[in-house]
């Protein structure tokens, strides 16, 4: 049986560090639970029954493997005669890659004998995925979501509620993903003995960045096999958007040992890096501790965390997963930033050329393609992760573009 997890790359060290990044900067109250979770996940990885059950869910419930689509009309609009392949995570059940992680962690939750799950969500995709897994497994579920995100992602709020989940509005700070994550951790500090926290991104305290990577590595493992079959060779580049970085690390991880595959992470440049209104932690931040791990953070000189800004609720986060920080420092991956306007252009380009409307998050990866492809060799093969579909964003984008779909 094929393994359902695993990334062909090293895990963190015993202290949960990727290079100097990561760790467990959390209150003592949750430390025993993090140890329990780490042990439970390691045991699950070694258990064929876990892989069997997860594999079955990914195939029969999520609809994996997702297709790798040769986007020839999109390719023709890009420099260097590139051949772009889209990894269609938008075709997963619930509409984004988040379900891969949510189902794996829900299985873990059951193995640990816990009956309640909590989650944070920005765009609502992880919240919907967790609410879905909770419904499937009969778990009680509460999702924390910033007030501002509940407004711009109202459709996903309704989906979560329909799935039987309690959605709790977070008014603190900027009322976005950062504050929802903080509030979810605070809930967990108080509920840790009965509750599993399904953290949705590759950030946060160990073992989450490792666990989320392993559960999302199915993206890159499938894409690697599919592109090898289609092209009889590895791609020159793999591209994904980065907020916390879960779809990016899932795509990247299986390619990390392939030295010839360049890895590009695209952060949200918001109104532009020079305006200070952005979410480009790797590009414009510096190492600091936020939400339990040491990683690049947008912060002031005193270490107070700054507010992020992005048109995309899922990328609107002033931190990033620690493994991305390590990949940036070693130079194994390259991180660049795409503005709100470029992302909207990416969304339009993909819609018009391929008939695929990506989520605003994924549209950042598409929006950066002209810049990335210009630096690649002639005829390069490029794999791009379309991490989610854009349905949830249509009310917001319609307001911005106007009824005719023209900005």
């Amino acid at each position, binding site marked *: 049986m094929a393994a359902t997890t695993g990334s062909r790359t090293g895990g963190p060290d015993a*202290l949960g560090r990727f290079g100097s990044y990561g*760790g*467990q*900067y*959390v*209150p*003592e*109250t*949750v*430390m*025993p*639970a993090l140890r329990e979770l780490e042990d439970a996940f390691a045991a699950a990885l070694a258990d064929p029954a876990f892989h069997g059950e997860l594999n079955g869910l990914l195939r029969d419930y999520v609809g994996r493997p997702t297709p790798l689509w040769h986007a020839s009309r999109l390719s023709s609009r890009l420099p260097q005669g590139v051949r772009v392949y889209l990894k269609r995570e938008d075709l997963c059940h619930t509409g984004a890659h988040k379900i891969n992680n949510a189902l794996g962690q829900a299985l873990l939750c059951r193995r640990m004998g816990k009956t309640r799950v909590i989650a944070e969500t920005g765009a609502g995709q992880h919240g919907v995925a967790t609410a879905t897994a909770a419904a499937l497994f009969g778990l009680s579920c509460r999702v924390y979501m910033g007030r501002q995100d509940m407004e711009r992602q109202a459709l996903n709020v309704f989906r979560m509620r329909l799935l039987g989940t309690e959605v709790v509005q977070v008014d*603190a*700070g900027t009322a976005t993903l*950062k504050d929802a994550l*903080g509030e979810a*951790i*605070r809930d967990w*500090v*108080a*509920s*840790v*003995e009965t509750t599993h926290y399904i953290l949705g991104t590759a950030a946060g305290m160990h073992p989450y960045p490792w666990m989320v990577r392993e559960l999302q590595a199915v993206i890159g493992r499938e894409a690697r096999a599919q592109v090898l079959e289609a092209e009889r060779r590895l791609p020159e580049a793999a591209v994904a958007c980065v907020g916390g970085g879960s779809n990016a690390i899932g795509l990247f991880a299986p390619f990390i040992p392939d030295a010839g595959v360049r890895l590009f992470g695209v952060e949200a440049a918001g109104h532009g890096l020079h305006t200070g209104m952005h979410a480009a932690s790797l590009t414009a931040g510096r190492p*600091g*501790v*936020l*939400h*339990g791990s*040491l990683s690049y*953070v947008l*912060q002031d*000189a*005193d*270490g*107070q*965390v700054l507010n992020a800004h992005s048109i995309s609720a899922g990328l609107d986060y002033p931190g990033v997963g620690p493994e991305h920080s390590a990949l940036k420092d070693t130079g194994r991956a390259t991180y660049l930033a795409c503005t709100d306007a470029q992302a909207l252009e990416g969304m339009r380009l993909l819609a018009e050329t391929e008939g695929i409307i990506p989520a605003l998050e994924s549209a950042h990866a598409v929006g950066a393609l002209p810049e990335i492809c210009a630096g690649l060799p002639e005829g390069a093969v490029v794999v791009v992760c379309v991490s989610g579909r854009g349905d949830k964003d249509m009310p917001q984008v319609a307001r911005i573009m106007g009824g005719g779909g023209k900005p």
Partner: protein
Amino acid sequence: MNATTQPRRLGAALEAVRHRGSKALVPYVMLGDPDLQTSLAVARAMAAAGADALELGLPFSDPLADGPVIQAAGQRALRGGFRVADALTALRDLRGSLSCPLALMTYVNPVLQHGYGAFVADAAAAGADGLIVPDLPLEESGSLGDACRAVGMDLVLFVAPTSTDPRIAAVARAASGFIYCVSVAGVTGARSDTLDRVPATVGRVRAHTDLPLLVGFGINSFEKAARAAAVADGVIVASWIVQAVADLGAQVAPEERAALAGRMVGAIRAGLDGR
């Protein structure tokens, strides 16, 4: 390590309280809430009313261990333009006029951004006796603990009701000053009607150390303060006082805020002393 070194001011003061058969009272104030002068007035009033040490909050934007009351206090301070340098000013001011130990409470990132060594050297020079960092569990505390030791400060470590016995033993070996015993699984200001888990938690820690054990989180009544103190060496009271002072409203003068905090500390003190 701490067994062979001289007890520093924080641990020594708390041990002296125990020695005379009393219970320690450590109240909290968020520096800069809503401005530096008011928070200093509150701190002085609490010291005058019988605090055995003061816990001084240095605000952080994303405080994972704090409930709504302390979060709001930190936001008020940050909105008022509070900087880390202001905490040093506050320490110098209080150190000049108070004899009780001063423990700075903050999160790891502001400390890290100034550099562990530079931060603790500046804090110690300004008069801090201890540092309390609730998002720095034992596993991550080694280098900051070393930095604190080098300047004669105590890095206070935590135990919680969820801590396993092996963890408690390891914390007890590394701890100095006192051990912060969290009363409930939860964040500061936790609303718990009972303190059911306190005796067991304190008892499990006591089996491993003679260090003073202070109970904090959710101590929001005279009765709870007395019950927690009965099984430990003292209590830390934060959200209860911070909320009461904040409830006075923004227009109330600093002296009135300080007076209320002082009256509360005096009353808690009297309760702990059985008066």
